[in-house]
């Protein structure tokens, strides 16, 4: 059984290698600078993600929101931890570091989102970084306290509202042909907001069920 699996994996790898060496050396890429500028961006990847492949991005946002909904519903059926367990001791070093860093993380993620169409970045890494920043804050302050401060229904409303705004922007771009820098920046910001809130929801649900690390 083991040898059969090894032979199968090696055969698959061999086939892929055979296919790959035929691909190289790669030919030149088509003209990309003019279409990028036509979408109002200087970053070709952002112009593709939010411009010519906007359908993919909208569906991705929808899938992400559905996955987060699934996590919420799935964790609802599992028992929550009783609060009589002792919490992780808060060290002053972590508190101080979190206090200083959360501002930096917030500004950096906003910068990444807002300048995604001009340089590397965009909504997706910005949202992920903001989610990690919220994770840092949860490690320092305790996830339960942070969950009380971030009022859950507001967050849910914000997440689904961001999805709705993105769909509206997508419709405007695809159907009405709206181009320019402002729709790009707005789309990036809302994508970042949605990814960050989704990451926080996963984090919070997991911690409240499994206990802090």
């Amino acid at each position: 059984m083991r040898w059969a699996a090894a032979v199968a994996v090696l055969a698959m790898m061999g086939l892929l290698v055979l296919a790959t060496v035929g691909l190289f050396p790669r030919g030149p890429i088509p003209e990309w600078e003019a279409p990028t500028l036509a979408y109002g961006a200087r970053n070709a990847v952002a112009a593709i993600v939010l411009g010519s492949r906007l359908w993919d991005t909208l569906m991705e946002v929808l899938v992400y929101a559905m996955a987060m909904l699934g996590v919420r519903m799935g964790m609802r059926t599992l028992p929550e931890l009783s609060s009589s367990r002792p919490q992780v001791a808060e060290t002053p070093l972590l508190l101080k570091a979190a206090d200083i860093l959360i501002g930096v993380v917030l500004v950096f993620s906003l910068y990444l989102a807002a300048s995604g169409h001009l340089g590397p970045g965009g909504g997706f890494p910005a949202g992920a970084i903001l989610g990690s920043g919220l994770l840092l804050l949860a490690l320092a302050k305790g996830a339960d306290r942070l969950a009380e401060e971030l009022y859950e229904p507001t967050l849910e409303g914000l997440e689904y509202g961001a999805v709705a705004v993105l769909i509206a922007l997508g419709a405007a771009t695809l159907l009405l042909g709206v181009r320019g820098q402002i729709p790009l920046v707005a789309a990036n910001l809302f994508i970042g907001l949605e990814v960050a809130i989704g990451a926080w929801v996963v984090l919070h649900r997991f911690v409240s069920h499994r206990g802090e690390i």
Partner: protein
Amino acid sequence: MEGLTAALMAIALAGLGLWTLIRRRNAIWKLLGLNVASGGSILFLVGVAHRPEARPPILGMGPGPAADPLPQALVLTAIVIHFATLALSLVYVIFLTERRHTQDVPRLERPRRRK
């Protein structure tokens, strides 16, 4: 030739991940193998996008040919989707752990005894 090296390493990673997926018994090890294999597939696409002596496909980032922006745009959303599906599958694994008290996949697949 960096693209070719990256593509070959991507195939190696995919093979490694697939091997882990097949051989390990624990459900979380299988998910880890899948993680590495999908990292391999993403690396493959990015390697194919690379051109010799290329620079990032951003206007104003220096002279020379640019890398292909299309595969990079494709994998960008794929990475975030991968995280979302990973979170969902881990919810399922946690559920299984609570109910069936085991993460051993062959044992989970055995039909349950009726006591």
